[in-house]
Each structure stands twice: as C-alpha cells, then as structure tokens.
C-alpha cells in the first residue's frame, strides 16, 4: 500500500527572520555610522552576524518522499496507519511535515508515537498553497532531518464515514540551519483508501419473482433438481431410482417418484438515488442507503445471486456479477457515491440494456424527493421490472418551518411524496417507508409480507 519514493526540488521562500533581521541590521549599522555611537553597532551587530552566518549555512535541499498505508480498505470506524517516509539531501534542523487528510477521515490521537503529536485542526488552517483537495484535518509534525537519513512519522487515521478517499500528498516545509530560508515542496503519491460501510447481516431476503437458469439458492416455481419437495408423480423412464417415493409406491402398487423444486439464482439490481437539492448540503438518507445497499449486496451474493448497481445521480453502474470479486466491485461503486447536485436528466434509457435484465429484481433505495427518480422508477415498472422501493425517510433531520406558511409548505411536501408513493404502488411496485429507528432486516420482512399480499 505504498508508492515509490518521489523526489522533488522545493520552492524557496524567505523566513520571518530574513524579513525582520535584514532591515534591522541595515538600519542599525547605518545609524551607527551616522551617529558614531558604538552601542548601535552592538545592538545591530547580532542581527547582521546571524544573517551572514545563516547565508553561509544555506544549502538547497532535495526531498524524497512517499506515503505508505497498512491497508487500502477499512471498515467505517476502523483505523489505518499512515506513514510518511521522508529523506533530504542536506541537514535540516526543522522540517514541518503535513499529510493531507480528507474530510471523512480524522487523525486518531491514541497509538501515535510519543514524540509525534498529531493535532486535529479546523478546516482552512492549512499553510500551504499546494493544497489539492479540501482537508478536514492534518496529520502534522515538525522534526529534524539529517542528510540522506530517512524519517518516518506515522499517524493512525480513523474512517469517520464510508467513502473513497485520497490520503496525501505530503507538504514539506523546511527551515535551513540559519533560519533564513524556508523550502516548501509537495511530494508523495496520494494513497487511495476505501472505507467500507459497516454492513449488517440480513437473515432473510426478498426472493425475486423470476430466476435465471443457473443454479443458486432461490427456490424456483419450476420443478427440477433441488432439495425442496414439490409433489409426487408416476415413474417415467429416465427417473433416478433414488427419487422413488416408496411409501406412495407401496400404497398405489406402481412406482411413484418425488418431484422437487429447482434452485436457481437471480439478478438483483440495487438502484441508488444520490441526487441532492441545491439547498441541501448532503443527500438525505444517502449514508443509510449505501449501508443498506452494501448489506443487501453482501447477502444476495452470499446466496449466489448476481448483483448489479445503478447510481442514478452519479450515472455510475455495475453490471450484475457474482462472487467475492463482485462484492468488492459493488462496494467500490457504492462507496464512491457522493451527493450530486445536477439538473441533467437521467432517463433509464441512458443505462445499457444488459444492466437491467428482464428477470431482475430491482431494489431502489430513495427518499422519493426527485422527479427524475420517479420517472426512472415508473419507466422500470412500465417495463414490468420486479420493483421494490425502499423509501429512505428524509423527514428525520428536516427542520419543520415555523409559522402557518411553513406548516402549510410542510404539509404540501408530505402530500406530494404521498402522491408519488401511491402512483408507484398503483403501478404494482412495493413501496416501504424506512425510518431511521428501524433495522433493515425488519424492512426486508415487511417487503416480503407486502409482496406475498400482492401475489395473492
């Protein structure tokens, strides 16, 4: 989890000492000449000597640096160790090392080396103009660096939220021995870190109405080779002897065999709504949606089903696949989902046809706030897709507007969402509202019950 050392020549800048000492020394010595007072030479002399000695000690450094992490995937809430390896071509008494930590990660104070004191700082206090992305915290320390001797300060970073992050690059600011010049460089290849949502386990899953022809764990309606008993019938040429039901055979005086339901797998498409309104800072419920989608993907893949993903807002997708590799790909797509504010249309036809197989079970996770999502869901239903809509309740966290007008606006908003829900239900989709307090397993049981009711 580390890149090769990258070497950079730094930019040179003047330190505070150079900027303050130079006019002081010049003015003091000039005043001494004009007034003829030796005391002024005594007062200005140290500043002048410091400057001259400092200039004599100047050496242009060259830095080699790389960022190393002990993992590239962690679970949300877990920590990962980040190490910065840094060498310099000359001796430097004070080198400030700042590792950019993106929003969503924080510097964990515990388990840090005793002589390195990472500080969590508010955004915006980043001294370097080399910043490449917003940083929430900086893992920073200042230490001496001897020529060609590597120093490796390390920090533990905690994944506060799920997502795909880039840790680095490193900004290095070095002070020369005389304290006159400051050398600044940005180096080190940023390292990718994926924080996976802490997915819960689901005991029961919603079975799709239709299955594929390949073997899986879903009990199909068709009879074939499986485990679940379906019926008995008279023996036919080609039936296996072990299928003979001896009790029925004895009762009826002819050979009868057991019939079983075949077990197939299915295509599951997880449909993620990451749209955000222009007045909102975060997509409502996206965090819960992603965690739920990860749980569903893990559970369905464990049942040997094929799972695909559509991120409608970000226009990212993944064709259905199966196995552990598919799980990683699905999670990669899911954790890369970010709240997206766009006015662009997102009709279903934008997605390739193989992404939505005819027999697929589509599970949509959406707060039902965006008309484009409604249109996409209507379109899916018109195509007779087996559709489940889990409405991630957006009302929690919403501040109810005050006053009669605000209350009226709130009511209208809820009525509009009710209307959308009823339209979807009218089209035959199962729509279940998911409140924050409810576990996903409970929602899946409710979905299952609703589908059974609809089937009757």
């Amino acid at each position: 989890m580390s890149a090769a050392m990258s070497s950079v020549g730094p930019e040179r800048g003047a330190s505070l000492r150079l900027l303050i000492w130079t006019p002081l020394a010049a003015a003091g010595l000039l005043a001494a000449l004009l007034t003829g007072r030796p005391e002024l030479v005594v007062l200005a002399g140290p500043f002048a000597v410091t400057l001259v000695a400092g200039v004599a000690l100047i050496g242009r450094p060259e830095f080699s640096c790389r960022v190393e992490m002990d993992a590239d995937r962690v679970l949300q809430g877990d920590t990962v160790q980040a190490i910065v390896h840094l060498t310099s071509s000359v001796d430097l008494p004070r080198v400030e090392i700042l590792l950019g930590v993106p929003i969503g990660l924080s510097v964990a104070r515990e388990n840090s080396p005793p002589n390195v004191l990472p500080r969590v700082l508010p955004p915006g206090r980043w001294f370097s103009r080399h910043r490449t992305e917003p940083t929430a915290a900086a893992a920073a320390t200042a230490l001496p660096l001897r020529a060609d001797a590597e120093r490796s300060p390390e920090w533990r970073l905690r994944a506060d939220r799920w997502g795909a992050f880039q840790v680095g690059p490193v900004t290095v600011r070095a002070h020369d021995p005389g304290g006159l010049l400051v050398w600044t460089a940005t180096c080190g290849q940023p390292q990718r870190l994926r924080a996976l949502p802490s997915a819960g386990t689901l005991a029961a899953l919603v079975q799709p109405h239709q299955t594929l022809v390949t073997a899986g764990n879903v009990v199909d309606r068709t009879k074939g080779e499986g485990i679940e008993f379906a019926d008995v019938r008279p023996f036919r040429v080609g039936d296996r002897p072990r299928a003979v039901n001896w009790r029925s055979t004895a009762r009826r005086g002819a050979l009868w065999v057991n019939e079983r339901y075949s077990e197939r797998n299915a295509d599951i498409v997880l449909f993620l709504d990451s749209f955000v309104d222009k007045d909102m800072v975060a997509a409502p419920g996206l965090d819960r949606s992603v965690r739920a989608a990860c749980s569903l993907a893990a559970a369905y893949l464990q049942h040997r089903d094929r799972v695909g993903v559509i991120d409608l807002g970000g226009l990212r997708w993944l064709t259905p696949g199966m196995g552990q590799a598919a799980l990683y790909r699905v999670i990669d797509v899911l954790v890369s989902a970010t709240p997206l504010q766009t006015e662009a249309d997102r009709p279903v036809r934008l997605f390739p046809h193989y992404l939505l197989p005819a027999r697929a079970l589509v599970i949509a996770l959406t707060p039902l706030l965006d008309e484009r999502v409604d249109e996409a869901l209507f379109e899916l239903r018109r195509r007779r897709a087996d559709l489940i809509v889990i409405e991630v309740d957006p009302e929690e966290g919403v501040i109810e507007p005050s006053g009669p007008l605000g209350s009226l606006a709130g009511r209208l908003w809820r009525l509009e969402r009710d209307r959308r829900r009823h339209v979807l239900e009218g089209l035959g989709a199962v729509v279940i509202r998911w409140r924050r307090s409810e576990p996903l397993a409970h929602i899946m049981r409710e979905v299952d019950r609703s589908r059974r009711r609809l089937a009757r």
Partner: protein
Amino acid sequence: MTGATALVIGVVLAAVPLSAGRAVGGLQAIAGLAGLIALLVGLAGWPAGIGLSVAALATGYTLGVAGRVGADPTAPVEAAGLVLMAELAVWSLEARSLAPDTREVLAWRLRRLAVVVAGTITLGALVVAVSDLPAHSGAPLGAVGAASAVAVLSLAAIGLYRATASRR
C-alpha cells in the same frame, strides 16, 4: 509561552532606561511604549511589528546613551535582550503552524537561542572593547575592517550560490 516571555523581556527593556532618570526620560518612555505596542501587534500576527518593536526599544536605549563619552558597557546585555525578545517573538509566530515541534526540534531551538545570546554578548563585548581603543590605531585596524567586509561579502555570495544551485 514564548510570546509572553518575549513581552516580559520587552517590558524590562522598556523600563530599564527609565530608571536612570535622565532628561530624555519622556522620549524614552514614548519609545518604550511604542516598542511594546509594536511587539503586541507583532505577536498578534503582523511580523513587521517585531522589527519595529526592536527598533523602538533600541531607540529608547540609544537616547539614554547619546552624548556619553565612550561606549556603554551594558550595551551587550541590552543587545542580548533585544535579540532574545525578537527570537522568542518569531518562535511564537512559528509555533502557530499546524506542525507541533518534536522534542528534538525544541532542543535545537533552545541550543540556537543559547548560542545567539552568548554570541551577542561576546560580540558586543568585543565591539565595546574595540571602540575604547585610541581613535588613531593605524593601518592594522583598517586592515581588520577591510578583511571583515570582504569576508561578509564572500559569505553572502556563497550563500546565494548554494541557495540557487540545484543538487550537484
């Protein structure tokens, strides 16, 4: 901590010249006050204030020794105080960086301070001693002066060359 220490040193440097009770005491008080205000401004985040503070406090001191015959023997101590105050004030500003100093860097800073203060007192004592020599010391003293000027220019040239040249 470093900022507060710099301020305390500044107060002492502003107050000491006043204790002599000279005729220019009013001007010294104004210079001292201006020096302290400039130091506060410098510590608040305007680095030029540190330079102005040193200049103002040095002016207050010089007003006290103006007209005196021969060099003031306490000048090296005054110079050490000014250098110490300026170094601590700059340290205070540098300490506001995101990166906290490790113990090794703290030790280097303290060593550097000690060397600078000791060097200031030594150099000051030397200047005071040289200034007490007879005015017409002849060619040897002139030669020392010329050699010093050449040495300073050479060091400056070397430093600039090193700062601009890439690694060979």
